[in-house]
């Protein structure tokens, strides 16, 4: 299996990259880490006429962690974000999710922003961005726009990215004080895409009752499915939440499909179980417990 022929472009500045992308328009595809794109090329599921390799563009590999959140540049590899102590301190869900992304060797090359743009509903990072209400910054020759997660993922493998645009960074907001996160998934084999997976974020009040709780589910819809379960949890401490009812509330909101890996019913069941595990861990983390 080899990639089909394409015209290769290796811009060395951002301006040059945006010029090439503007020129080739819908015939162009951006190459960053390539860990999703090159398999698609090798299997001939994609055949772009022009490949714009941004690996030589300086200044795109930043990981900036501040009180408001973490901004990750287009060339920041999964491994670099996973290992960043500052990113983990500001938004621990990043590291929790990245450890579940494929294998360490893939994470050495694959990029966080690339995963978002690839917009696979079975992938972890789109769920993280959706759960946190983050955003993706898109640059083109005409300027920049910042698209919130809720409008960025438009369908399976489809995003709001337009021809001529380059996703230059993504922003993962920090959570308020007394918040915790967790990510749980079940895959047939370690490192495979999950049959079901749930990212959770819980914020507690000063008296440790649940003030806000939500989950983002993977592999159970065309885009990551975010469900606010604050009402289902009720204003109680995590120890007295009716977890079965919370699992049901999540199951009601998803529309999984069956395939050779799992039936729709099994995915629905798993998602409820994983949601409770992730929410309990997130609540524990919000109280400052190790999960």
């Amino acid at each position: 299996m080899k990639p089909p022929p394409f015209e290769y472009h290796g811009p060395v500045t951002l301006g040059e990259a945006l010029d090439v992308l503007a020129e080739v328009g819908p015939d162009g595809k951006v190459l960053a880490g390539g860990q999703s794109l090159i398999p698609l090329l090798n299997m001939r599921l994609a055949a772009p006429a022009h490949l714009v390799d941004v690996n030589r563009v300086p200044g795109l590999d930043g990981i900036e962690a501040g009180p408001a959140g973490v901004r990750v540049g287009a060339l920041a590899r999964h491994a670099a974000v996973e290992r960043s102590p500052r990113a983990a301190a500001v938004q621990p869900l990043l590291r929790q999710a990245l450890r579940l992304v494929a294998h360490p060797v893939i994470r050495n090359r694959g990029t966080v922003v690339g995963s978002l743009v690839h917009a696979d509903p079975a992938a972890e990072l789109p769920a993280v961005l959706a759960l946190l209400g983050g955003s993706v910054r898109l640059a083109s020759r005409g300027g920049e726009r910042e698209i919130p997660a809720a409008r960025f993922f438009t369908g399976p493998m489809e995003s709001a990215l337009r021809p001529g645009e380059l996703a230059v960074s993504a922003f993962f907001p920090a959570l308020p004080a007394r918040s915790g996160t967790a990510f749980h998934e079940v895959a047939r084999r370690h490192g495979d895409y999950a049959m079901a997976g749930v990212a959770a974020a819980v914020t507690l009040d000063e008296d440790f009752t649940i003030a806000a709780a939500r989950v983002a589910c993977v592999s159970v819809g065309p885009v990551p499915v975010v469900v606010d379960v604050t009402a289902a949890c009720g204003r109680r401490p995590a120890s007295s939440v009716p977890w079965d009812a919370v699992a049901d509330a999540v199951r009601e909101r998803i529309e999984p499909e069956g395939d050779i890996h799992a039936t729709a019913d099994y995915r629905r069941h798993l998602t409820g179980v994983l949601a409770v595990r992730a929410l309990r861990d997130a609540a524990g983390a919000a109280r400052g417990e190790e999960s």
Partner: protein
Amino acid sequence: MNETRHRVTLTVNGVVREATVPGRRLLSDCLRHDLGLTGTHVGCEHGVCGACTVLLDGEPVRSCLTLAVTVDGHEITTVEGLARDGEPSPVQRAFAECHALQCGFCTPGFLCTLTAFLRDNPAPTEEEALEAVAGNLCRCTGYQNILKAVHRAAELQAEEGGA
């Protein structure tokens, strides 16, 4: 179709090598076909099996998911470059001692992956060793001897470091 060809310069196992390749040439094919280094094996060609793993600037990557043009100017280490002064490396010796290979097809990928892993984590736990090999498929051994080899390689590496 006349494809545009690109001149790439790679430092492979410490030797500067040049090749002229189309943009779509995979690093795995560049190493094997253009540079004649057939130690890097090609299994699935979509990133699943790990047989083609090489070190790019010291970090393990799938050479079948990397274009040769992208890594122009970078350093590559393949299985041919793991031995030192004709002596097998600790990881290579451990694989031989522990019978961590049978047909050997997957071995170059395991050796490259583990060389970097043990450099970064010279005394791994059982769980860390398992995670380290989880991205490489082996259809012969059942992995038990490969896991033994990871720990044996760590010992050999420590002895060498101490010598």
